[in-house]
């Protein structure tokens, strides 16, 4: 059974890894996009999907190889919400705060998560196990409210179910890590 790309990407992103992508991978990314006009954002997508965020050294290297000043890279990375500048925790919990989820009480779900993990939205736990973030609409609005963890969607939740979700993550955890290993090429 093929694993959906987004799960693969997210799981990959969640796999334990070195702080920066291996150098040759960045060269590969740069070579792929260097000659295509306006492809900086695409290159950054490739980078983040491999490393989970945009590390400074990698950004510098990428900029050097693609002939883009670092300042331009940061201008772009800071404008777009999708890009992360710091390494997130291993399990990225995205609570959807889109309208459909909002109407079904996602704010309560989020604050439950914050309490449960003792961190605020946008932060990772000190042990780097979990990263909690709010997102806007994952396109499964018919199943609101929902959260996704490394791309796996937990849907039709009750707003007081944050504890339950974290338990489920802990149960599903071995799976996610195994998959990540499978995908680690």
């Amino acid at each position, binding site marked *: 059974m093929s694993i*959906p790309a987004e799960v693969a990407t997210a799981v990959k992103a969640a796999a334990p890894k070195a702080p920066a992508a291996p150098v040759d991978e960045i060269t590969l990314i740069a070579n792929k996009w260097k000659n295509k006009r306006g492809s900086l*954002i695409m290159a950054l997508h490739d980078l983040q999907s491999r490393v989970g965020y945009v590390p400074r050294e990698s950004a510098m290297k990428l900029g050097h190889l693609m002939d883009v000043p670092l300042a331009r890279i940061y201008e772009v990375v800071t404008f777009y919400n999708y890009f992360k500048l710091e390494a997130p925790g291993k399990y990225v919990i995205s609570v959807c705060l889109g309208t459909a989820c909002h109407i079904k009480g996602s704010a309560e779900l989020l604050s439950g998560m914050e309490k449960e993990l003792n961190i605020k939205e946008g932060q990772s736990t000190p042990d780097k196990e979990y990263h909690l973030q709010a997102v806007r*609409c994952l396109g499964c609005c018919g199943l609101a409210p929902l959260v996704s963890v490394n791309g796996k969607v937990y849907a039709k939740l009750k707003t007081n179910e944050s504890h339950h979700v974290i338990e489920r993550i802990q149960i599903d955890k071995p799976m996610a890590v195994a998959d990540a290993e499978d995908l680690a090429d």
Partner: protein
Amino acid sequence: MKPEELEVRAAAELAKQQAFDVRLFTCSSRGCQSSDALGVIAGLKAEVKARQLEGKVQVNGSGCMGLCSKGPLVRMCSKTQKDILFSEIKPEMAAAVVEQVVVPVLAGSKIEKPGGDLGQHTLDLNDPFFTMQVFSVLENNGKMDPEKLDDYIARDGYKALRKALGMSAEEICKEMLASGLRGRGGAGFPTGLKWDLTRKVPSEVKYIICNGDEGDPGAFMDGSVLEGDPHAVIEGMLIAARAMHATHGVFYIRAEYPLAVERVEKALRQARAAGLVGKNVLDSGWAFDFEMRLGAGAFVCGEETALIASIEGKRGTPRPRPPFPAVRGLWDQPSCINNVETLANVPLILLRGAKWFASRGTEESKGTKLFALTGKSKNNGLVEVPMGMTLRDVVEKIGGGTDSGLKIKAIQTGGPSGGMIPEHEFDTPVSYENLQQLGSMMGSGGMIVIDENDSVVELAQFYLDFCVDESCGKCAPCRIGGTQMLHLLNKIVAGKGTLEDIKTIRKVAKAMQKASLCALGQTAPNPTLSAIRHFEHEFTERLLPVATTKA
């Protein structure tokens, strides 16, 4: 591929399909995948194989079948009886579906509703949810596998392209204009006119861009179309390109829709391999190809000039228009930006004619419209209705009222740029003009149902907060006005507002509408203004008592 080969391939595929007695379609769109639709497909395949029924039963994926809240949905189509639609099927139920339904049907039984547990998982196809919808953009969903090119070709796919290749650019524009198709991305600009304007600008290089940013949070129509029928959008873009002499196509899809990106990329690879896209489109000597660009989580990038900046790899900030993209767009070349649903309508119009399309709808708004029906609606999902259907029919009959059993208070259409429409206006027929008159707008198709327990003040606050957060900050009316308005609204929600604050909100809103550079700022006050217009008492109820305000 030569044009005649389309017919050969279609006939071959149809013959292949005919050879199966039963065809199973499991929704493999994002919503259902999140409840393990792929596991269901694997389960069905395994069971069919175990029973050595592979020659008789075909197991397929499918686009969204609408009732996403009840997914994964599985449709059984048989030559000998009516379709059956199963809901909330889990992988471990796959064997029962085959054993209790498929096998008896193969043996000649007629089954309307299976008994036992599966009966609980069978939807009534005579429910208004299904009978009152009119499928055209969605007509392939549930009937073909979006990952198979030949399935699309067998359903008249790329026939419209073939027709377009025999027409002049002007003729195609005329046909689109006659159909009355208007942009489904929000503003409702006549598509034929936009194409014709772009056609008339002389240039060696021109771009046709598909706007798949779908920034309205709580709306998923465009993502569903890209996932469920990617070839239809590609075909629509090829025809658009012919109509305006475009030389390059670009898909801009939000990064939060990885499955849509994957499906479009796969469809493009298939179309290239088949000679439908690339160096020699349908052996006509015409070369045309596409590029893929991903968004990165900025709502403003749905605005066309910001979208262009984003494709150029820059921060997605809008710029003043004119010059319009038709004159100066991507890389300073003439460009046309169209919404996904707009483009998906194009092949149908060309193939069936402008008259066919215009036969549905109202005087000014033709065809059908997709809506993402969510919130407190009983039936949550993706629906397609003819323009001109009343909101009441959409919400109460198709939507089935509320899941809470409470009375519906209002719907919100048009997302952060739209507004709330109170229940007593529900007899209004759906059209661009009507929704605008009610202080909302068609928008891209988000339709959120709220019940009497929901607060419109808080919903207005939610949307304004969204817009303030998503403002690119380039111009002051939006940046400062939005923040100021939100501050006042927060005050009212906290029970600390005064009548004066409502007046100030109105004033700031007017300034934002008039002076903002792009439609984000211009329309950001709409949800709040519509809420005040239709539900002023909900605001005044929350104000400080008059005596306190004087003190």
